[in-house]
């Protein structure tokens, strides 16, 4: 009798564990975005080149454009003008082209081989430099709010429930890598996330809370300009997600070290954008058509013209049948 009582007590004690169900989600974008230099404003490698790499990427571009069009577009001169704040020896150490690199690494194939155009050799690093500049200004879907270090900025933003949704929505579904500013303070450090692994469980005696641990794999830009491939680093985030009576996630909170170390904002680049008048976001002298010519050759141009003639081609390319849709 006593044994039965003990057994019952043991089973009752274990009962809450049944609520401690483990769940998980993961995803990975293939091919992964490529690593590349983030082209610091302070160092100015795009205009100065680096040891063993002369002329610089932008000098090569100007030379190529002059051969192709008969005129020097002045990409190097514009970039070197400190008033445009793309090169500035007095810039803060974190300022640079990380957003351009991050977008280009997601939206364009990695230039892995040297291209010789009009007798000029464009190495992988040259091409990555041109692409990083071209994508400084791009269309994107933006989530959260940038922390400017001002009173009223919400230190918990981006909220973990939104972050978790985006991870599953974009990376879990294979839709796209996404870019995070990993610095929760006023500095901006943009890195693409291309992979995540997330596990969660309900809390002891609290089935309205999911305790989540997520590992995010970021593509690293702390590489030599000539680096080819994807070098990554991993960051662990912890957070709680809160459920309503129907099991819907309605809010969340960062926990542990993630309270002060979580993404500030998230954005997903969707395409290149022409430079608006008087904007210094991107070097306006850099012709994207010539960059494409250098990095991809004329084949892609043909595809673009085809799509512009009839947008139904893009629908077909996605695997849908316009005749059935319409």
């Amino acid at each position, binding site marked *: 009798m006593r044994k039965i009582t003990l057994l019952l007590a043991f089973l009752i004690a274990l009962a809450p564990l049944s609520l401690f169900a483990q*769940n998980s*989600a993961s995803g990975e974008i293939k*091919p992964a975005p490529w690593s590349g230099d983030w082209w610091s404003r302070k160092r100015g490698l795009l205009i100065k080149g680096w040891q063993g790499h002369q002329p610089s990427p932008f000098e090569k571009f100007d030379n190529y454009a002059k051969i192709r069009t008969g005129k020097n577009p002045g990409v190097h001169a514009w970039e070197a003008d400190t008033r445009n704040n793309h090169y500035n020896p007095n810039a803060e150490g974190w300022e640079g082209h990380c*957003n351009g690199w991050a977008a280009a690494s997601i*939206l*364009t*194939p990695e230039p892995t081989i040297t291209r010789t155009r009009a007798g000029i050799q464009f190495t992988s690093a040259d091409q990555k430099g041109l692409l990083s500049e071209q994508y400084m*200004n791009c*269309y*994107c*879907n*933006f989530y959260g*709010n*940038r922390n400017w270090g001002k009173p009223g900025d919400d230190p918990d933003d981006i*909220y973990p*429930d*939104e972050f*978790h*949704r985006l991870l*599953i*929505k974009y990376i*879990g*579904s294979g*839709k*796209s890598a996404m870019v995070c*500013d990993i610095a929760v303070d006023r500095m*901006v450090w*943009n890195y693409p996330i291309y992979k995540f692994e997330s596990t969660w469980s309900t809390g002891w005696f609290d089935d309205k809370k999911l305790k989540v641990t997520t590992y995010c794999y970021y593509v690293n830009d702390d590489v030599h300009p000539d680096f080819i491939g994807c070098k990554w680093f991993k960051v662990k985030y912890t957070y709680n997600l809160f459920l*309503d009576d*129907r*099991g*819907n*996630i*309605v*809010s969340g909170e960062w926990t542990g070290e993630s309270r002060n170390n979580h993404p500030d*904002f998230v*954005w*997903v680049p*969707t*395409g*290149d*954008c*022409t*430079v*608006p008048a008087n*904007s210094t*976001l991107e070097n306006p002298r850099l012709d994207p058509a010539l960059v494409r010519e250098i990095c991809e050759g004329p084949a892609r141009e043909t595809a*673009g*013209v085809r*799509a*512009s003639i009839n*947008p139904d081609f*893009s*629908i077909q*390319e*996605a*695997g*849908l049948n316009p005749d059935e*849709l*319409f």
Partner: protein
Amino acid sequence: MNKKVLLVALMFCCATILVAPGIMASENGLEPSQTGFTPTWQIGEEWVLESSHKDLKSDVESWQAPIQWVFKVRAIKEKNGVECYVIHIHANNPDVKNQAVLWLAKDDLRPVRVIDLYPTLNGMKYSEKEVDPNNPQPLLSEDTIVPYDLPVFPLETEQANRAQGADGFSAYGKIKEAIGKKFAKIRNVGGLSFKRTVSQNNKQPKRQNSDGFGAYSAQGMSKDAQQAYSIEISEERAQNDISQTWRQGYPWAVASTKRDRKVRLVKYQNKTNNPNTENGGNEQ
């Protein structure tokens, strides 16, 4: 006794003063009666929206080059037992490859099926947005740059808000209450459901928008055709409120703004000048 009579008389007077305006308004036909507006379209009809996008990650306030989006009614087809307009949306700029296809119920434009198309390194792909035709909600163009934000129709405003009271002060003194609706927006993603409350408020439009959208005040159109509906759609904890202005006689919102996007109708076929067409929108 006299005091009682006086008190009753006083109360009667007060009650009369309080109730009279309501009675008078009713007699004058000025009671707040609901009206509604739902655009109607025809196969082949098309219009163009221009969207400008703000770069929220930039150090300085910066608006990017606008994109023109062609909206075309490609078909009217049945989907899940509902007769729908099939709207195809694509950019005029071939470099912008995002597209969308919307199935909107012909009766009230509630979303029945929504497809987002987007470019990837492996070519174009598509995803279907989760919509529940039996539980209509504002359609938000989240996770895409295609600006197809759509409120729940019919759009409503209070008849009384348009009426000038006999005393001439109504236009100044009436508090124009918004007509609000709330929706539980559930996003099912990877086996999890994320819930937020989305609200839609129909407000009295301003006479002139400060951002220049007031230019879309339908020059040369009839007074009825200029009836405007100002809509605000907001989602809790999202800080991404949408303000839209719809006008009878126009196929889509003439202006729409949110924190990182301004959209305006730039080309359309003005159907209201042609009394033989049914495209001017329907009063309900």
